[in-house]
C-alpha cells in the first residue's frame, strides 16, 4: 500500500524523529482503509482471473459502473432525493414530538408518572410492527412512510431529552433560582444549554434510526427511493444496484450525521468532558 510509510532507513531515522508524529496523523487513519481496500482489490482480481464470475457478488468495478450509470441518468439523485425528503419529514416530526414530550416529562415529575410508562410500553413494540396498521390508517403513500420514520426517530429523542432534563444538576438550577429566573428564562438560560450535549447525541441516534426506518418504509411499497432500488435490484437480479444503493445510504447517513455534528459544534465549545475536543 503506497499510503503506508513502510520503510524508514536507518540513516534518516534521526531526521525522522519528529516526522513520525506527522506521519502518524496521516497514516494512522489510513490504516482503517487497508482491510476494505485490500478485500476489494482481491475480489476484483479474483473476478478478473475468472476464479469467480462475480454475478451474485459484483466486483468493485461493476458497482462503480452501476453507480455512475445511475448518476448519469439522474436516477440516483431522483431516488436519493425521495429518500432524503422522507427522512427529513419523518425526522422533523419525530424530533419535534420527542423534544416536546421529553422536555415536558423531564420537567414535570407528575407528567412523567402519567405519560412515561405508556410511552415506554409503546417503545417496547418493534416499530416495524406498526407498518400494517399505518398502511391501513394512512394509506400506502408518503404519509404512512413518514409516520413510520417519525416513530423511529421519536423514541431516542424523547428518551434522551427526558433523561437529560431530569438529570440537570440541581446545583446549577439553584443558580437560576437565586437570580429569580422565570420559568421560560430558566428553560432558555439554564436547562436548554445544560441538556444540549445530550440532545445532540439524541438527535444523532434518532437520525440513525430514521435512516433505518426509511428502508423499512420503502420496502413496504414505493415507486422511488433508495429502498426501492434495493427491492428492484433484488427482484430483477441486479446485485450491483443493491450494493450501489447501500453505498448511497452509507454516504447520506454519514453526511447528515456529520452535518448535525458540525451545526452543534459551535454551541458545544465549552464542553469539558473526556471526549470533548480541545
Amino acid at each position, binding site marked *: 500500500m503506497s499510503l503506508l510509510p513502510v520503510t524508514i532507513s536507518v540513516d534518516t531515522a534521526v531526521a525522522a524523529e519528529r516526522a513520525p508524529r506527522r506521519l502518524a496523523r496521516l497514516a494512522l487513519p489510513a490504516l482503517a482503509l487497508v482491510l476494505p481496500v485490500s478485500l476489494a482489490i482481491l475480489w476484483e482480481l479474483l473476478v478478473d482471473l475468472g476464479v469467480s464470475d462475480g454475478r451474485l457478488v459484483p466486483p468493485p468495478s461493476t458497482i462503480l459502473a452501476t453507480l455512475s450509470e445511475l448518476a448519469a441518468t439522474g436516477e440516483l439523485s431522483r431516488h436519493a432525493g425521495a429518500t432524503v425528503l422522507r427522512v427529513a419529514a419523518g425526522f422533523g416530526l419525530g424530533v419535534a414530538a420527542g423534544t416536546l414530550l421529553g422536555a415536558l416529562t423531564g420537567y414535570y415529575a407528575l407528567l412523567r408518572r402519567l405519560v412515561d410508562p405508556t410511552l415506554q410500553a409503546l417503545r417496547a413494540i418493534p416499530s416495524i410492527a406498526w407498518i400494517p396498521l399505518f398502511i391501513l390508517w394512512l394509506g400506502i403513500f408518503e404519509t404512512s412512510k413518514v409516520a413510520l420514520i417519525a416513530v423511529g426517530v421519536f423514541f431516542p429523542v424523547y428518551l434522551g431529552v427526558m433523561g437529560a432534563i431530569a438529570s440537570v444538576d440541581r446545583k446549577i438550577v*439553584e443558580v437560576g433560582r437565586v437570580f429569580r429566573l422565570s420559568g421560560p428564562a430558566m428553560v432558555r438560560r439554564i436547562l436548554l444549554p445544560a441538556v444540549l450535549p445530550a440532545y445532540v447525541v439524541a438527535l444523532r441516534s434518532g437520525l440513525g434510526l430514521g435512516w433505518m426506518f426509511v428502508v423499512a418504509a420503502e420496502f413496504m411499497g414505493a415507486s422511488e427511493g433508495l429502498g426501492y432500488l434495493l427491492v428492484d435490484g433484488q427482484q430483477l437480479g441486479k446485485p450491483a444496484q443493491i450494493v450501489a444503493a447501500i453505498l448511497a445510504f452509507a454516504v447520506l447517513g454519514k453526511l447528515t450525521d456529520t452535518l448535525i455534528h458540525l451545526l452543534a459544534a459551535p454551541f458545544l465549545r465549552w464542553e469539558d468532558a473526556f471526549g470533548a475536543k480541545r
Partner: protein
Amino acid sequence: MLSLHGVGKTYATGLRALDGVALAVAPGEIVAVVGGSGCGKSTLLRLVSGLDRPTDGEVVLDGTAITAPHERIGIVFQEPRLLPWLTVAGNVGFGLADRSRAERAERVAQALDRVGLADKAGVWPRELSGGQAQRVAIARALVTRPEVLLLDEPFSALDAFTRIDLQDHLLDLWADFKPTLLVVTHDVDEAIVLADRVTVMRPHPGRIYETIETDLPRPRDRQSAAYDFAKRRVLAALDRSLDRKAVTDDGRTMSEAGAALWW
C-alpha cells in the same frame, strides 16, 4: 437589618434540622456561623437565601419576609457553580440580564477587575483554577450589589494558601460597599478572620448555642494574641456545644485534642 425570628426547619423526612433560631444581623455586619457537621448551618443559609422555606418562624430583611430568592440577597456556594456554557464574563453578568448591554459590560468588567481576573473575561470556566472559579462566583454574586451576601463554606474546597488569600480578598471586596455578610464555615480561623460575631451552633436539632464577639481590629493579624484568644473561645464553645468534656471556665486551657476533634 436581617433578622431571623424563631426559625425552624423540618424536612419531609421528619428530620428536624433547625429549631428556634433567632438572629439579628446589622447592615454591614459580618457574622460567621460555625458548628459541627449536621448542625443545620447550611440549612440556615438556604432559608435565608430563600431557596428553602422555614417550617416555623420567618426570615425578615428590612421588614420583608423572605420566602423566595430575593434580589437584595446574594449567595456564594461551597462550589463555584459556574455555568460551563458561559464565559467568565457571561457568568459574572448572569444576574444582570435585565440591564442594558453597555451597563452590563461595564459592571462585569469592573467586577472582574475587582477580583483580579480582568484577563480571564473571555475564557471558559473549565480553564480556571479552583480559587479563580470561586472568585468568579463571588464577582457574580456581588455584581448585583446585594445588601446581604451569604457564603456557604465558600473556601472549604481550596488549599490553605488560596483560602487565606481569598479571605483577605473577600474583606477587601466587602469594604467596597459594606454588604451584610453571613458566612457559614467549619474553619474556625476563617470565622475569626472574617467575622465581627461568631455564632456557634449545636446539632440535633440545629440551634444557636453561643455567640461570641470577636472584637478584633481590622485588618486582623492571624498571629496576634487577641486573635488566638478569640479562636480559643470559639473552639471552647464548639467543644461545649458538642457536649465534649468541658474545659475550664474561661476556655484558656482548651486542649489541642479538642481543637482537632470538634468537627
